[in-house]
């Protein structure tokens, strides 16, 4: 196939998946020397556009890469995606085309196309630097830049992308890039998940012969690896000049890219500090293929460019800092943090330690805004480090072991940590995970495992170093990770103001005073005692394995600080109730002093709270409702649960002071797209507005945009309804809503009704079948000893009873020995997995 040479005529493209032939056209343009070249361009041809997306591909792809973006163009926007000269279906060239020339070529083309502003450039791979070159030459028209898996500079000390360098090696380039289609095919083989064969063929379509691949080789040769390269100056000029670009920028990144790794992303972020970023977990180099949803994200981002800023949401006053209580009690010799069977640290000692450590961290190069991964078990060391990092203006990054090593690796690398504070085990894990950044050894680890400092050294050094200035209250203070129960764990960013607002709300809600002391067996709260201004003890237990907390271990922790408050997950409490018989009289006395029991992390059954009355006779049982992104949102006591009675879902109580809860009603296809309402009885996605809601998701622009699409509100992903008394009832997770032909069904209400049946220990209600035509399947764990291990059909009696109780049409009732739960809290049923198993089982045999 040859490129047609007529001007403005529709191009002649073979039939390719996802490509509308109507977008294809050719344009003949003269360059500065007067030589005419025929370009092949994809162009949606919107007349009088409100703006234009100018999309530039890299090597060896072609405009086909941008087909989804052409299809997803926001209303009124023109999308123009040329094939670079010598590439795709554009005219072939007799010789190499250096970078500066290619940038000029693109300008000639846009002039010929009559492109006027506003323009947003979009570049991938080496198209990134060319698109930025165009952007710098057209500042008047430029409205924004979008970049995906690209580079503008070789970061200092870098050897250049290894794979590309290999392709550029003498004697290799000609064979790999031109003589054979290896380079063309290898590029589309990088895709994760693998591309369909027809799409790979489409990418290879313009490069069938060696003659048609000539520019692919020339393009590789034009990458300025060495300082003396003819295109080096042009590349460096672009790399430096973009520091002055003050337009909005969006970076879309596939972290599994073997060509452009993390360092290229870090380099771009440093040059374009205003850039928003979305990392598509699992995606590789060909981001537009690996993350097809990128097109919607770009369309949304472009549409948002002229949006007026969202109205301000409630903000905490920022008067109290996270370390205020520490400073106020700096002369207090009472116990601030106790390790069971270990050290007890007084308020005065802790305050001094935090101050010295903050100064030591700063002296050792921990800068405000730097991200610090904490791989230290809950301990006095961890507590001191967290407050010192905060005081130094840096950001703590907390990813717990519950995510598994792979999940932690993904989370911590994605968060861009600059420093790692780790125990011996933590530093070893950091090495295995290949985390970047400096290492600081905690506890008795000593230097080694790459650690240049120990906490002790830094503390000593800090005694003679200046205490850093207090960080601004709206700076980031923490990145926490969600459980990762559904897909990769998400980083959640809090500012100092938001974290302080959260603590203030907890203190006010539970009437905490300096006379209280608490035991926190719930990971994020284990370190918050000093900020709350109350003494705390961490039980001798792995807080990331909540099922391991026994009643005696809880009692020993309570005795260590004379605890008045206990905070633990439902899974932990279940084990505590089960081991109550092991308590000694002294341990019972210690637990008898507890006035308040808090449990969160998953729905807490009233029966569990009741069963704890024996262990914690004087404790008022409360369950706050919330999530990593906002905690607490509501609170309900055992008495409150009992007063609310049965209903559709779990009653989690009324919103706390300063918290606004609305729901976004569900449509029949299970999407929560209705306008926010507080009308009683309307089921929808639970949306929260409060001063202590997270600032944003980290490096997940598109997710953050979707979660905060109602100005000032955070979408929680939970579904539920408000009742006439203003209480919130949680009915399940949005992605667990069953979409039947007759309407949507939420799982929790069905499960509760089934779980009230005799002989039923637990139940999960899930949907089987395609969205919109699903049927409800109830999977039951029968109570009693005789449990069938494998999934099976319930007998007729149980099936009839479940159908009678469910309140919705139930297609099948299955039994199983246990329901899969999330790794983090070991309490939330993984309904997606239940549904997968049920669907497999109910499909019957496979011939």
């Amino acid at each position: 196939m040859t490129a047609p040479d007529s001007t403005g005529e529709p191009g002649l493209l073979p039939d390719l998946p996802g490509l509308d032939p109507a977008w294809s056209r050719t344009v003949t343009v003269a360059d500065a020397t007067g030589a005419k070249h025929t370009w092949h361009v994809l162009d949606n041809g919107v007349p009088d556009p409100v703006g234009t997306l100018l999309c530039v591909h890299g090597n060896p792809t072609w405009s086909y890469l941008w087909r989804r973006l052409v299809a997803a163009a926001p209303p009124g926007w023109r999308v123009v995606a040329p094939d670079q000269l010598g590439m795709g279906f554009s005219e072939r060239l007799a010789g190499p085309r250096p970078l500066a020339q290619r940038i000029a070529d693109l300008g000639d083309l846009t002039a010929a196309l009559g492109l006027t502003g506003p323009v947003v450039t979009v570049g991938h791979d080496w198209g990134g630097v060319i698109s930025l070159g165009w952007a710098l030459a057209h500042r008047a028209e430029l409205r924004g830049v979008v970049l995906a898996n690209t580079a503008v500079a070789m970061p200092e000390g870098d050897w250049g992308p290894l794979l590309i360098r290999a392709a550029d090696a003498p004697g290799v380039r000609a064979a790999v890039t031109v003589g054979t289609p290896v380079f063309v095919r290898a590029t589309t083989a990088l895709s994760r998940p693998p591309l369909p064969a027809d799409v790979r063929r489409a990418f290879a379509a313009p490069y069938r012969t060696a003659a048609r691949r000539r520019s692919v080789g020339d393009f590789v040769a034009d990458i300025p690896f060495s300082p003396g390269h003819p295109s080096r100056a042009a590349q460096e000029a672009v790399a430096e000049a973009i520091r002055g670009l003050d337009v909005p920028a969006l970076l879309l990144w596939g972290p599994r890219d073997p060509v452009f790794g993390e360092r290229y992303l870090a380099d771009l972020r440093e040059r374009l500090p205003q850039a928003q970023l979305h990392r598509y977990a699992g995606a590789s180099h060909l981001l537009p293929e690996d993350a097809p949803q990128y097109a919607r994200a770009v369309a949304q981002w472009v549409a948002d460019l002229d949006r007026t800023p969202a109205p301000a949401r409630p903000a905490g006053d920022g008067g109290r800092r996270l370390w205020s209580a520490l400073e106020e009690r700096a002369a207090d010799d009472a116990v601030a943090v106790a390790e069971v069977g270990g050290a007890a640290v007084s308020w005065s000692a802790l305050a001094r330690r935090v101050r010295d450590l903050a100064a030591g961290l700063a002296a050792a190069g921990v800068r405000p805004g730097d991200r610090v991964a904490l791989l230290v078990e809950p301990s006095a060391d961890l507590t001191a480090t967290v407050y010192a990092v905060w005081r130094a203006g840096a950001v703590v990054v907390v990813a717990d072991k519950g995510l598994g090593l792979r999940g932690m690796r993904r989370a911590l690398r994605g968060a861009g940590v600059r420093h790692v504070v780790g125990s011996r085990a933590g530093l070893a894990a950091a090495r295995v995970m290949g985390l970047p950044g400096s290492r600081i050894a905690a506890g008795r680890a000593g230097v080694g495992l790459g650690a240049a400092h120990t906490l002790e050294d830094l503390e000593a050094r800090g005694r003679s170093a200046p205490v850093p200035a207090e960080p601004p209250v709206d700076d980031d203070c923490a990145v926490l990770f969600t459980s990762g129960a559904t897909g990769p764990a998400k980083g959640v960013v809090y500012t100092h103001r938001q974290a302080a607002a959260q603590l203030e709300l907890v203190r006010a809600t539970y009437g905490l005073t300096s006379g209280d002391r608490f035991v926190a067996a719930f990971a994020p709260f284990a370190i918050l005692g000093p900020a709350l201004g109350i003494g705390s003890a961490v039980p001798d237990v792995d807080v990331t394995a909540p099922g391991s907390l026994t009643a005696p271990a809880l009692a020993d922790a309570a005795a260590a600080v004379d605890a008045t408050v206990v905070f633990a997950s439902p899974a932990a409490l279940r084990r505590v109730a089960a081991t109550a018989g092991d308590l000694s009289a002294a341990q019972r006395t210690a637990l008898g002093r507890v006035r308040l029991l808090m449990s969160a992390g998953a729905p807490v059954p009233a029966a569990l709270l009741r069963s704890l009355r024996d262990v914690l006779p004087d404790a008022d049982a409360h369950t706050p409702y919330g999530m990593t992104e906002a905690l607490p949102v509501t609170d309900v006591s055992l008495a409150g649960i009992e007063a609310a009675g049965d209903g559709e879902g779990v009653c989690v109580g009324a919103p706390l002071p300063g918290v606004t809860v609305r729901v976004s009603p569900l449509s029949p296809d299970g999407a929560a797209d209705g306008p926010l309402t507080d009308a009683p009885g309307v089921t929808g996605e639970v949306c929260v507005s409060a001063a202590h809601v997270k600032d944003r998701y980290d490096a997940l622009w598109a997710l953050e945009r979707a979660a905060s699409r109602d100005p000032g509100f955070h979408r929680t992903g939970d579904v539920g309804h408000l009742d006439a008394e203003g209480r919130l009832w949680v009915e399940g997770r949005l992605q667990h809503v069953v979409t039947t032909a007759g309407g949507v069904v939420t799982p929790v209400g069905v499960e509760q009704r089934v779980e009230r049946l005799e002989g039923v220990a637990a139940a999960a209600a899930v949907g089987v079948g395609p969205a919109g035509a699903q049927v409800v399947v109830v999977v039951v764990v029968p109570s009693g000893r005789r449990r069938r291990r494998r999934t099976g059909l319930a007998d007729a009696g149980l099936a009839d009873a479940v159908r009678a109780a469910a309140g919705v049409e139930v297609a099948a009732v299955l039994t199983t020995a246990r329901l899969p739960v999330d790794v983090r809290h070991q309490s939330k049923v993984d309904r997606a997995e239940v549904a997968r198993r049920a669907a497999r089982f109910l499909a019957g045999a496979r011939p």
Partner: protein
Amino acid sequence: MRVLVTGASGMLGRATATALLERGDEVTVLQRRPAGLPCAEVLGDVADPAVVRRAAHGQDAVLHLAAKVDVTGPWAEYRHANVEGTRAVVAACRAAGVGRLVHVSSPSVAHAGTALAGVGAEPADPRRARGRYSRSKAIAELDALAADSPGLAVLAVRPHLVWGPGDTQLVGRIVERARSGRLPVVGSGAALVDTTYVDNAAAALVAAADACGPVHGEALVVSNGEPRPIAEVLGRLCRAAGVPGPRRRVPFAAAWVAGAAVEAVWEATRRRSVPPLNRFLAEQLATAHWFDQRRTRAALGWRPAVSLEEGFARLASWYAAGGVSPVSRRGGLPPGR
């Protein structure tokens, strides 16, 4: 409306003709033997063009149910009744200027043996349909839909596993086998299957006769929209009939291999009786097949009036009242319709 119903001696044909009569339509029925219905009747072979032309004369609509529904017998018989019969009906509609043809088909025309979960009406595929019945019905449906034109609106309706009181095909054979202890559950018994209570299927066909015209040229699956695990369906039918439910379990692979062997033996010995098992049946009893009813309900403006629960209750009272299925001489299970 003047309506011709072919195949009115079967359970569904009879129920459909009765439903039309009850609402005052002028009904003619066509089948080999007298149906005993209070309406005009033409007796004869549905594949005989002259007979069908005579029956179609002056009709506004034709509901074509006549078919050879079986699991054994030579291909020529299926082709004659199902393919040539349908061609004769289409030709007669054209010749007589009948404006609407509702062709009654079967979901098995698009069932290649794998599990179908919540799917719509996929195109009929004679090459992949399992067994002679399904293949012949697939050809017939394609022929019928190909005749859809401005002069003749054609709608293909595929009721899935129709059952009810007086059913000699599905219920009768299941109950008979259960009574003699020969009803096995193939595989886990978990395969989710849709069924259709006979009154619902009849109402759907009446609705199709009305909708045909504005709605045309497509196939629609009809079911109760209440899929159940196959073991539960068998158990409930047996419970309604007062016979013990299936006890034995046959692993799917064993049933499939056995089915293949039985087919080979029946083929080699040219036996005309219904084999105890074949591969089609093994698959039907062991793999999910349930359907997305949204398009059907929207297109026909119809919803099943009798729930599964109500259907089982009606079946139970019918059996309790002494209704004994005239069990077929041949004791096998019928195919997917």
